[in-house]
């Protein structure tokens, strides 16, 4: 029953990349699910496997990618019936015909290189429209293209439709990419760091557009970012990833008001507090581990101020904090010494809650 509402369930997905230096264990057993009409954010530092865990969903595979295991179950309503499919099992053709564009669409990170340089904008969108709605007349397609361009907040619809990608700015291009993603009326939209390459002002605008569209179309969204500030703006649920694993998951309130994992604390703190500037910005020291090496214990341990001895020996399981909230840190074990989140963070959260109540 509950499954019906889950548009996508990823179970224990494991992805390697074979490289010259050895196998990169990019995704090491990731599970998450996306509910209908909900936005799930995947957060984590660069290289922690965010993209690697969503690429298999849309069947995008690098030549050296090896899917070691797991399932990706996609569910959708088809003529009143609920259909269910394992996206890792279907053929490329089926994926192309049934899923891509029509069910699941994707927005890529770099808007500068995501559009075909030799094709007019209108045509590139039209192509996506036509492939999803095969019976549309040329006029209808045109009409839809214009609508889509307007939907992503571009005013000069006619001009832009006739332009080539290189004539547009980064922000404009990213909007076009979003319009293309929407062309097939997908159920699930995957945005892989759609704003990272843009500056803050444009980032804010793009986020607004995605938010608006998500609401209007009741879309499910997987949103990938390394910035918890962005997550706060857009997400309903959050999965925090580190070194190829989800290390904390919960609703947005769980993560922002009751974070349990030290890594999440670090991420939260690294977003500058405009309202109460501190002397030194809190930070996560060090770098993510080399993913070609086998990781013993908790991958985050070497960078963790609160690391326990066991972190270097044994991998922490997912501890259930609440029904919606889980975290993989030994600090949640009964035997662990009690550890509070950093004082400054606690203070900030308190203030936030104050703001919320005060309102």
């Amino acid at each position: 029953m509950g499954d019906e509402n889950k548009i996508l369930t990823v179970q224990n997905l494991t992805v390697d990349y074979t490289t010259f230096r050895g196998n990169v264990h990019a995704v090491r057993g990731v599970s998450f699910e996306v509910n209908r009409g909900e936005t799930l954010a995947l957060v984590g530092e660069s290289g922690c496997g965010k993209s690697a865990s969503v690429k298999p969903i849309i069947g995008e595979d690098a030549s050296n990618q090896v899917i070691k295991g797991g399932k990706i179950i996609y569910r959708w309503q088809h003529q009143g019936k609920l259909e269910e499919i394992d996206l890792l099992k279907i053929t490329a053709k089926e994926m192309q015909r049934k899923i891509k564009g029509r069910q699941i669409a994707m927005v890529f990170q770099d808007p500068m290189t995501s559009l075909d340089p030799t094709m007019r904008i209108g045509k590139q969108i039209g192509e996506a429209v036509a492939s999803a709605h095969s019976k549309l007349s040329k006029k209808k397609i045109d009409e839809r293209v214009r609508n889509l361009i307007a939907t992503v907040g571009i005013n000069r619809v006619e001009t832009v439709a006739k332009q080539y990608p290189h004539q547009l700015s980064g922000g404009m291009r990213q909007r076009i990419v979003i319009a293309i993603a929407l062309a097939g009326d997908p159920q699930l939209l995957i945005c892989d760091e759609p704003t990272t390459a843009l500056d803050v002002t444009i980032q804010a605008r793009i986020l607004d557009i995605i938010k608006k569209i998500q609401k209007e179309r009741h879309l499910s969204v997987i949103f990938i970012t390394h910035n918890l500030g962005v997550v706060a703006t857009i997400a309903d649920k959050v999965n925090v990833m580190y070194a190829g694993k989800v290390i904390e998951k919960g609703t947005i309130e769980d993560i922002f008001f009751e974070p349990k994992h030290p890594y999440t604390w670090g991420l939260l703190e690294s977003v500058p507090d405009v309202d109460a500037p501190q002397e030194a910005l809190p930070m996560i020291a060090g770098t993510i581990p080399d993913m070609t090496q086998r990781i013993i214990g908790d991958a985050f341990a070497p960078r963790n101020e609160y690391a326990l001895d066991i972190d270097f020996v044994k991998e922490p399981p997912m501890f259930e904090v609440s029904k919606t909230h889980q975290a993989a840190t030994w600090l949640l074990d009964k035997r662990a010494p009690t550890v509070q989140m950093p004082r400054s963070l606690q203070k900030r959260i308190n203030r936030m809650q104050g703001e919320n109540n005060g309102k």
Partner: protein
Amino acid sequence: MMENDEILLDVEGLKQYFPITHKKVLKAVDDISFKIRKGETFGLVGESGSGKTTIGRAIIRLYEPTGGRIIFDKIDITHELTKKNKTILRTNMQMIFQDPMSSLNPRKKIGDIIKLGLDVHAKEMDEKTKKNEVYHVLKQVGLDGSFVDRYPKELSGGQRQRVGIARAIIMHPKLIIADEPLSALDVSVQAQVVNLLKQIQKETGIAILFIAHDLSMVRYISDRIAVVHLGHLLEMGTTDEVFKHPMHPYTKSLISAIPGINPRLEKKRHRLNYQKNVTAYLQRTTINVGGTHVVLGHENEIEAWQENDSLNE
């Protein structure tokens, strides 16, 4: 605040135009003036393409300025430089770049990259002293000697950016121009770099021209902030002045774009839109609105902005 402090850099009416075709020029920077005092951090913010990088590069004289005057440490460095002045400029002013990957020569070892400045300017220094210097600055940026023999691609983004900083501070400069040193980094790592810069500044008293498009980080590090847009300086003042009482609508829109981490607030957040208009800037003058706070505008415009401001308060 630091009114009586010595002025390190004086930029007066700087203009930097680029020829595009025979007839057209692109006015990347148009009549910008500001001063940086010794030991101060001066933040320069603005959206992409507003001319920040161009300002930075003009100051360090990678470009030949089209107009205006740049005085650094009492030396006019606007045009042709004497050999002596050139050495002063090239040692006392250093730059940190935006892209940590592309700012380090991929074929050189970290140690050699950092040492480059010494190789050029400290010819009297022997290899060993130079090496020690390198170890010393590496430590200053939180890396140990094991990095000297690495290649840039073996480092993470944050580490690379710290190498970039090490390269700049090994010359003991008086001014560092940091051109968006954060924008290519993950937020979690941005803090590492900002803290490092701050700490170094505290230790050495270097002045920093900190360029960014993200106001939130600038706030942390800067004593004073200038907002530029389309090559014009719109607003300038101490960090508090600009943040507490932003005047110009553009500044306001920039501030409103900063994402916070309060999900409930963020979801409802109303972002201010700003329509750019260059010609309007040309018809306006820089007006002091109290303290060191200046804004580009008309008298009556500013009054309206101030009123708006107090309404919001």
